[in-house]
């Protein structure tokens, strides 16, 4: 069965402008993504691996439209992709209750006008879907643990029923047992709702656990792409081998 592409990226270049240090020095452009080609297929979990600073987050931000300055082709089948951030402590507004936070994406939905009853129903639906109970809705984020907060962040991203979810290091700020639970939750949501997930992580073990395909990135270039199992068995690039060795997966 030929799978459909949800996201098609061809020769994507992204630059950041370095601010002038003195009035006399020239503006320098920081070339972050250097011609990235990547396909994301419908209904898969694609892992994006690479060391810090290699451009993973920039790619994620470009896909969800937070970074509007780029050249190259970026075609998406579905509009309105959503994103889960790394740090569950800063991605939830500390002065709002959980119920409010979950409702907010529906209030600002431009495609569909949600009535109050529909919003309440949807909030209850999602809080169950992310494995929490309704009595959480009256709490503030500071009263929740890191894992619970990350569940809420995922819930906020899912409110408008997106087809594509970009998860930028969603488990790196959590400890190992909670990591496993959140990964479990992502897999479960992927199965039940048929969401395509672009999973970004520096942890190759985590990617091996949940991803169908994997792309390895270094210095703004995709070094290697393929099915997760075959890449882990026979890595073609030196960099992937090195990463696998560092993760203790390969000797």
């Amino acid at each position, binding site marked *: 069965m030929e799978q459909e592409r949800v996201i098609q990226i061809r020769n994507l270049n992204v630059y950041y402008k370095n601010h002038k240090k003195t009035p006399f020095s020239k503006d320098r452009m920081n070339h972050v993504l250097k011609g990235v080609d990547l396909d994301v297929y419908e209904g898969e979990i694609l892992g994006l691996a690479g060391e810090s600073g290699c451009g993973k987050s920039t790619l994620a931000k470009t896909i*969800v*439209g*937070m970074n509007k300055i780029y050249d190259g082709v970026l075609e998406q089948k579905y509009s309105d992709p*959503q*994103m889960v*951030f790394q*740090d569950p402590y*800063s*991605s*939830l*507004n*500390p*002065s*709002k209750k959980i119920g409010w936070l979950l409702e*907010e*994406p529906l209030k*600002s*939905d*431009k495609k569909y006008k949600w009535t109050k009853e529909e919003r309440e129903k949807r909030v209850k639906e999602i809080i169950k879907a992310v494995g929490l109970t309704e009595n959480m809705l009256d709490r503030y984020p500071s009263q929740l643990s890191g894992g619970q907060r990350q569940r809420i*962040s995922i819930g*906020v991203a899912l409110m*408008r029923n997106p087809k594509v979810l970009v998860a930028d290091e969603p488990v790196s700020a959590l400890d190992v047992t909670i990591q496993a639970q959140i990964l479990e939750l992502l897999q479960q949501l992927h199965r039940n709702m048929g969401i395509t997930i672009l999973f970004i992580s520096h942890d190759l073990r985590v990617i091996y656990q949940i991803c169908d395909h994997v792309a390895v990135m270094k210095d703004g270039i995709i070094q290697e792409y393929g099915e997760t199992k075959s890449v882990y068995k026979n890595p073609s690039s030196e960099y992937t081998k090195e990463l696998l060795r560092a993760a203790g997966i390969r000797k």
Partner: protein
Amino acid sequence: MKRFLSLFRKNKATGKRNSYLILGCIFTGVILLMVFIGLFYMPYSPTKMDASSKLQGFSFKHWMGTDHMGRDVLSRVMYGSRVTLAIAASTIVIGAGLGTIIGALTGYFGGIFDEVSMRVIDAMLAFPSILLSLVFVSLFGTGTYQVAVALGISFVPSFARIVRGEFLRSKNMDYVEVARLQGVSDMRIIFVHILPNTVGVLMSSIMIGFNNAVLAEAGLSFLGIGAQPPYASLGNMLSDAQSYLFNRPSYVISIGVVIVIMVLGFSFLSEGIKRISNY
């Protein structure tokens, strides 16, 4: 209400009491009670003169004595603190209101608008606020309302600075990015998402600002601008009283003590609010 009351008890975790908050509430409570009673009942009319009882000391008939025109000082203090508090409150409403809007917009959007308004604010901050309000008063004319507006404008820069700083800190937080990603409008992000997170800082600076406003009003009235005789405000009463510093010290002292209680009350309150999270 229960949560509010628990602020005054000992914190179970640290075993400490927020004594600043308690003292602040007592002091401001005394002043507010006095002003509140003054709305309905004053022992004498604050403007009624009586040549036969000039410059008396403390007595049961005149609790705070009388002034150089035989007016009852307690009644005048009741009336004067009302005027002073009203001016201070409207100063804060104008200053904090405008300052918050300017600070929020410049901090959030940045760019050329930010640069220009910050340089204007720097220029305003370079003048002492008393001098600045003197300039405004000479533009608008003297009187209670004019002083309130003048002081309000001279308080805008400090509030704008504080709020701008908070917005610069908050605008790159992930929760703002999340809101932006969901297509929440900028105005809603500014006033609904970020502004509630600045309330802690804003509240304590409002309290400090209130203090400064009381002192600035007293200062301006002392200089003869502000509430005009025969009507009283704490400042112009103090300026009257200083001529009788040596032959009737009780006159100066009673007014001075009221100003001290008022100012101390608000600074304790601001410190107490600042510490709520730590207790």
